[in-house]
């Protein structure tokens, strides 16, 4: 008997040092409301699920990118030798902006990280509702309409 495959439900927790950088990055690149309630945790859970879906090499590359992002801040003069996770809000934001303004592979990797984390934020149902996206009732209504109109021909 066939069972539908279940999606990964256990987040792939990044290593502790990468997780700290991921948390800080989420606080910086997501809209400020990410700090409301437990949203940062929810974003990190989503990120963990996304990492679990990646092949090992990509997972390791992203984890390594987080580590480099974290440690690279020590070389960022305004950071005064601190890791990214320990920078203040303004310094952390300026650091990310400086990285993204560069060219090359490092900037591209940071851009991908930012993109994945913002995707994870807008994946949260309460965030989607706040921007007016709530597709379930709409889908239910048009599905009903379809069946009423075309029941004979619908699969």
């Amino acid at each position, binding site marked *: 008997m066939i069972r539908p*495959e279940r999606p*990964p439900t256990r987040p792939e927790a990044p290593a502790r040092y990468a997780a700290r950088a991921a948390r800080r990055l989420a606080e910086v690149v997501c809209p400020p409301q990410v700090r409301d309630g437990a949203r940062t945790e929810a974003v990190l859970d989503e990120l963990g*699920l*996304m990492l679990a879906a990646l092949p090992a090499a990509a997972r390791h590359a992203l984890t390594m990118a987080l580590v480099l992002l974290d440690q690279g801040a020590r070389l960022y003069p305004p950071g005064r030798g601190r890791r990214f996770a320990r920078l203040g809000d303004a310094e952390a934001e300026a650091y990310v902006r400086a990285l993204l303004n560069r060219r090359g592979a490092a900037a591209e990797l940071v851009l991908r990280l930012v*993109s994945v984390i913002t995707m994870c934020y807008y994946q949260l149902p309460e965030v989607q509702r706040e*921007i*007016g*996206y709530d*597709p379930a009732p709409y889908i239910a209504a048009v*599905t009903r309409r379809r069946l009423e109109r075309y029941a004979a021909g619908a699969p």
Partner: protein
Amino acid sequence: MIAGLTAGADIAGDLSLECGVVVVGSGAGGATVAAELAGNGVDVVMIEEGGYHPTDSFTPDTGRALRTLYRDGGGGMAVGRPSVLYTEGRCVGGSTVVNGGMSWRTPAPVLERWARQERLAQFGEAELEPFFAEVEAALSVGPQDPETVGRDSQLFRAGARARGWDVVANRRNQLHCAGTNSCSTGCPTGAKRSMLLTSVPRALAAGARLFAGCRVDRILRHGGAASGVTGHVVRPGGRRGPRLTVRARVVVVAGGAIQTPALLMRSGLRSASGQLGRNLSLHPNAVVTAFFDTDVTGWQGVHQAFQVREFTGQGLLLTATNLTPPMLAGMLPAWGAELGALMADYNRIITAGPLVCDTGTGRVRNIPGLGPQVFYQLTDSDAGRAVRGVELTAEALFAAGARRVLLPFGGAPQVHSTGELRRLLAHPVPKRSIQLYSVHLMGTARMSEDPRRGVTGSFGAFHGVPGLFVTDASSLPGPPGVNPMETVIALALRDARHLLGQRGRWGL
């Protein structure tokens, strides 16, 4: 219970099978071949790396869809300047489960060019017409029911028509699509006639066996001819499970334009043409984000109801495609509070853009430890056309009433009028700053009757390896300039019929 379907999770130990034809992949090409062969009495085994996800499991949850229906969470990247992000389906039914369902025949001039350049046999428009007609009937290809067309599509069409451009209603493989705008996360009503709901069940009903969640590692050979495949069950996290070996008289590879050449290459196969893995086309597309004063609610209505065909002579198609919040947020050139401000207008946004019929090519290579990696060089000419397509798209959106648009060029300011747009684009746009995406990957095992030019022949046979066939988008000799699904399915059907005509040769 679905007879003939076995999930990898249910395979406890090593498995060894025999059959007439083993088909690698269950998407547009693989499922079509499998259904046709099985329906004519051939003993078929299908191997699909992705899982089986039935219609009732589909939800609008983007993250879940990316994790379950797409390869690598939808995060493929063709490295170049600029890099191009791409997605591939990986599930039973392949990319047909997550594509928009656009169903167009290969344009006649493209068929003529392919036939001439590659000396392809029986490749004229008239000879292919019956295959296209049969596919369209089987997949219920046609225009949308009007009540399903959303406001984003209507506005984009109005803008294009105000410019005097030719706009056509999209043809899609759907049976009274409800317009849920869920194409990319799996159609929750089953209206989209993907391979999951058409050729896969047809193949199974005819006696084919399908093993989902199993990855093929190598093609086996005996005496120079293909003799089967070997692979493994994929466990959670990508871990290797029990071994799977399938002995077959014919091997059909249909894993798509990235995985097919990668499998062939790691099996030690080479093409005398040197073209295996090369000639990757990907119809690069870009996204223009337009903001309106009133709600558009683009997620209420069908995905891509229309196409602007005015510029096909320049290799450009324009269309409006709604993106879910996570997908849009991942694309917007903003973060932090700025991203929040842009996304707060989500319901007033239309996303639209050009698809470029590219002249540049890329390459698939197997990198030890990393697997298949994709490289692509956007030509100056294609970059120029992408910029032109963005400009035209933005013009249509302004004509439709947009108040401002974001262009897919890194660092570009918001634009508030066509005048501002023209002034901005009067300056060259750096190629590396163009943000490009692709869902159409093609050409890496191109067909040509000349073994010095191509990897496969007119009917999918791999040059130099008896019993090995390729029937997917990798065999296309170039970009068709329209959505390629129907081309792939029609050619796969044709390949299957040709193979059936040679049953005696292959002992099927």
